């Protein structure tokens, strides 16, 4: 009788082990099958292929701004005036919510390139035209929940947590850039 119980117990631990390993393999297998399905929802190759945009800057006069599309998003390019550059550089970064110097945000001081998406909940701020409101700091103003951005696209007032993003870009010549 006692021997039998012992045997039983032995069987039990072996069974536990087999069940655990089978379960673990099953879980890993299920995950491995699920992944391609989930990953198929990530950006497809053609979507990724659209992820660079070339822009010719020659027609943009000083003080003017243009909006181009990059990855389905608006990108703001502003040909800044001397005053705008100075204004952006005079600010003490310690006072900023998202501390960044203007120098860190531009390749060439006269060209400011930004993703035109408010970092709060994704609206497009206004201020691209001289006739539009530009908020208290002369840059852009987001009407959705009232975020004010300065002439470097930095958040100065309102609910947005971050500065307007600077997309990756490079100058391919003196007057053209490639975004992305």
């Amino acid at each position, binding site marked *: 009788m006692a021997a039998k119980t012992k045997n039983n117990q032995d069987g039990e631990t072996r069974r536990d082990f087999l069940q655990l390993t089978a379960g673990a393999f099953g879980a890993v297998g299920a995950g491995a099958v699920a992944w391609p399905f*989930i990953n198929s*929802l*990530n*950006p*497809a190759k053609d*979507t990724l292929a659209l*992820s660079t945009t070339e822009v010719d800057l020659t027609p943009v006069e000083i003080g003017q701004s243009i*909006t181009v*599309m990059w*990855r*389905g*998003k*608006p990108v703001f390019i502003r040909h800044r005036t001397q005053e705008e550059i100075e204004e952006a550089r005079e600010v003490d970064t310690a006072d900023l919510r998202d501390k960044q110097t203007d120098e860190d945000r531009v390749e060439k001081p006269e060209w400011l390139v930004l993703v035109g998406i408010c970092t*709060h*909940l*994704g*609206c*497009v701020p206004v201020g691209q035209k001289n006739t539009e409101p530009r908020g208290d700091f002369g840059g852009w103003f987001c*009407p*959705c*929940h*009232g975020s004010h951005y300065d002439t470097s696209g930095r958040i100065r007032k309102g*609910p947005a*947590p971050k500065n307007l993003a600077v997309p990756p870009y490079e100058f391919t010549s003196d007057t053209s850039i490639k975004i992305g």
Partner: protein
Amino acid sequence: MASGPREKFDNPVVEWIDSRLPVFTLMNKEYGVFPTPKNFNYFWNFGAIAMFMLVTMIVSGIVLAMHYTANVGMAFDSVERIMRDVNGGWLIRYIHMNGASFFFIAVFIHMFRGMYYGSYKQPRELLWILGVVIFLLMMATAFMGYVLPWGQMSYWGATVITNLFSAIPLVGEKIVTLLWGGFSVDNPTLNRFFALHYLMPFVIFAVVFLHVWALHVTGSNNPAGIEPKTKKDTLPFHPYYTMKDTFGLLVFIIVYALFVFYAPDYLGHPDNYTPANPLVTPAHIVPEWYFLPFYAMLRAITFDIGIPFTDITIISAKLGGVLTMFGSIALLILLPWLDTHPIRSARYRPLFRTFLLLFVVVFVFLGYVGSQPADATLGPLPLSVFGLLGTAYYYGFFLVILPWLSKNEKGRDLPASIHESVLG
């Protein structure tokens, strides 16, 4: 669905089927002779009404899907074509559009009924939770449906709501890209939303089935909030409640039809008749009315929560808003354990009744706050202050008032039986 002893049917065809698959026995047991408390008031109609609305949405939706094109270049025009060229298309679309609103009206009233009469309490906790799950699925379905016509509100609503997930620390941005299938709301997003919008109502249907199954295990609650004890306390479901439900449903349909035929766009937003434009945000983004109270809670948190006197932020305003909004639904799931008072019905709990009615007022007021621009004011104060106060009451009701009342409210004497409570 057990195949226990079965009574024979007279009709030979019915009997032939039933002896092989007892569907008639099942229907008769659950909807024919099913013993139902005899004191139901009209609040008990809204379950059946919600069921009717679900079927209406599925039928009208399938027909719409036969004419609709889920592509950013064509979606808006295909909906306009439904409105102008498809035979009776305008009617089908207005039935679907207003149907979503009336579905929510029915479900809000249904949920209020559950709260007022304590239907979430033991032994109906799971029944209640399944209801909250249905509510969540409905919100997701309606949100994705609203994106399909690809108007300005569709586009910007989708942008703002999907961006909420970017508040999640570390993986937020990745999740948002995964949701979009790109770097902004675009064609891949529209396509998957359409696929899910088609699927989810059927998932809802399955959960409704579980919800009704659970209901038929515990039986219905009733306005007195006490269990039926004798035969005197109940009536067979048919014909008593089939008739009462039909009558209430007809009244509801009349009101619904008034909107469909005479004010089809009253509950909607004119901006959604402008095609989506990723470069221009409408001046004032508002969700559909049934989301407004939750939207107000999202916007109520306008401040970072961090360690005092340092620059360290633990929860940013954005994340705080998102947590507050989703938390408000999580509280509903926890409700059976937050209110543990032995008396179910608010009829016999005057204090609970007062706080609950105030809760309803606050909830509606939050809806008003959610409908206003973010910089609106009420009197001398910014409206967001009231949004915060309302949110505080919402949370306080669940987390402070209900547990406190559970311990301290005395309550009135309960009637001895349902029969007695009806006789007065």
